[in-house]
């Protein structure tokens, strides 16, 4: 997997490069600001870009804006936003055009490096990787009347739904909840029914359910 990193704090940038290299990943470039990121992606055509939300000069949302530009230029590029805080607004912006190849993780998740690499792989392959914190905040931020279906989920279904929103596979959800994969499939089918999502091809229903659950569609 070819990776480009945009992170302005040198100590984190270097640490990330070392860690990813130690897991056999190819870091094509590690840069400190948005223009350098755009140039590096143009040059290296990576599978995924890891982008700090706050970048120079103003340290506000430069990373999110660069991500939007990258999405426009390279629809297939996986984009993983990376920050010390979760801001529901940025997550909403990020998911505004769907959850394909999008991720948003807290920086501290790097410490579980294998999970982190796993998330990068998912995003590079067009999947989703949302931090549990992002899921909680989005569900909270977009809670409003008229979304009764979310409230009708059983506690177990809600747990499955949250993990699904993080971008996990059925096998990973089963492992995480210590239940069988069949049970997970059963819960998901029930969620689809409650969300009134008719069967379609591929993963489309799953994506729709996640976006509906997060309140961004």
């Amino acid at each position, binding site marked *: 997997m070819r990776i480009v990193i945009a992170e302005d704090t040198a100590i984190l940038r270097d640490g990330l490069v070392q860690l990813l290299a130690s897991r056999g990943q190819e870091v094509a470039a590690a840069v400190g600001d948005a223009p350098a990121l755009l140039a590096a992606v143009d040059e290296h055509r990576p599978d995924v870009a890891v982008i700090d939300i706050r970048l120079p000069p103003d340290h506000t949302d430069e990373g999110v804006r660069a991500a939007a530009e990258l999405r426009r230029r390279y629809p297939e590029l996986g984009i993983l936003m990376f920050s*010390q805080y979760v801001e529901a607004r940025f997550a909403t912006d990020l998911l505004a055009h769907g959850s394909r190849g999008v991720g948003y993780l807290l920086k501290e998740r790097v410490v579980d*490096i294998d999970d982190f690499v796993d998330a990068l792989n998912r995003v590079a392959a067009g999947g989703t990787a949302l931090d549990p914190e992002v899921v909680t905040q989005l569900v909270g931020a977009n809670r409003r009347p008229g979304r009764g279906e979310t409230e009708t989920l059983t506690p177990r279904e809600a747990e499955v739904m949250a993990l699904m929103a993080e971008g996990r596979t059925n096998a990973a959800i089963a492992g995480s909840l210590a239940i069988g994969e069949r049970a997970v499939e059963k819960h998901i089918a029930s969620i689809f029914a409650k969300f009134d999502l008719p069967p379609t091809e591929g993963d489309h229903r799953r994506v729709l359910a996640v976006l509906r659950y997060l309140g961004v569609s």
Partner: protein
Amino acid sequence: MTVSAASTPNPTRSPPRITFAAASLYLIASTLLWVVGFAVTTFLLLVGVALSITPFGLWIIAAAISTARAFGRLYRGLVHKLFRTTLEPPADRTTSGILAWRRFLLSDGGSWMELAFLFIRVPLALLNLVVGVGLWIYGLLWTLWPLLRNWDDLYTRQPDGTVRRGLHPFGFWIDTLPRSFLVSVAGVLLISLAAWTARKLAELDMLFYRTIISPGRMSVRVRELERSRSYAVDDSAATLRRIERDLHDGAQARLVALGMQLVLLKDSLAGDSADADRLAHSRGLVDTAQQTAKTAIAELRVLVRGIHPPALDQGLEPALRTLAANGPIPTALTVDVPGPRPAPAIEAMAYFCVAELLTNAAKHASARQATVHVAVVGDRLHARVEDDGRGGARPRPGGGLAGLADRIGTVDGTVVIHSPDGGPTVVTVDLPTTP
């Protein structure tokens, strides 16, 4: 920079006790004051406006306002002397330097109000002159009529052709000495009327000042308070933002980095750690992690000190001693705080003012040493920071000194900056001991 003056003494609100003598003296003195003040100020103002196309215009207009302030001060002094009553003065200037003088006068609402007062009191001054002084003069003339009649040359030719000397109001002839005493009696009555009128006119004057000028001052004051409050809100938001950013880029990032380094260390320790190369590599990683942890702790310490210096809990003096000892330049410190400690917010404000001024002295003025003197006198805390740097410190909008003055303004404190080019710089901060 127009920081409000120190807390104004509470103006006496009860109606002043006005004696006849004081009121009469007041009428004469205030009228004279107005004749001179009006003439001088109008002259300056006209010249200033006429020259406003030249560089001198604004200076002369500022001089006119300054003159109006001087006459206002004389007027309030007169009122205080005669009636023992205080009229609220406008805020004073808190900066030194000739340019600051002009800027203050031209932009200060309170000073323009003084000028306006000089002009809008003109009708009252005229009334004082005509009624007050006129009644007195006629009262005196009439009272002294038995004497004065000898020099009087009022002759009236009567219908029968004869000429008669004397007054004849309402057809009644006053031409004998006994009859002239009637005029004297009327004169005494007129003088009592003058005295009564003088008192009423003086009261009217006070009332005018209190209802027209003081509320104007109050609205100026309210504007100042609104400005200083909005500054306080902005300032605390900016402070929180700075703390958040310091944490984000500092300790928080280092802790994440520490986590990463520990992952690498764990990798390195996996497998056969007896391998000498691996062991050396692991030791190197431990060193790095240790260094990262140390740096994070140091950054947190600096950050905490910036929020609230722990030494401040012991008092202003220990905190300032620590500050002076760790400061960028050698600093001589004297602290004289007898009696109860100032409020914590004031101590913190004084501390951060001194800290900022010392930093300025080292950074901007290239000073080699500084003297700090802090004293509490009554209910005011004075802090003076003096350096031997190159001077030329001016408060600029958005600059550090202006921010300092704004912060001090939030508690009605004042700052006076004396910093001629070439130095030395002396900055005096005056704060109330309770906010």
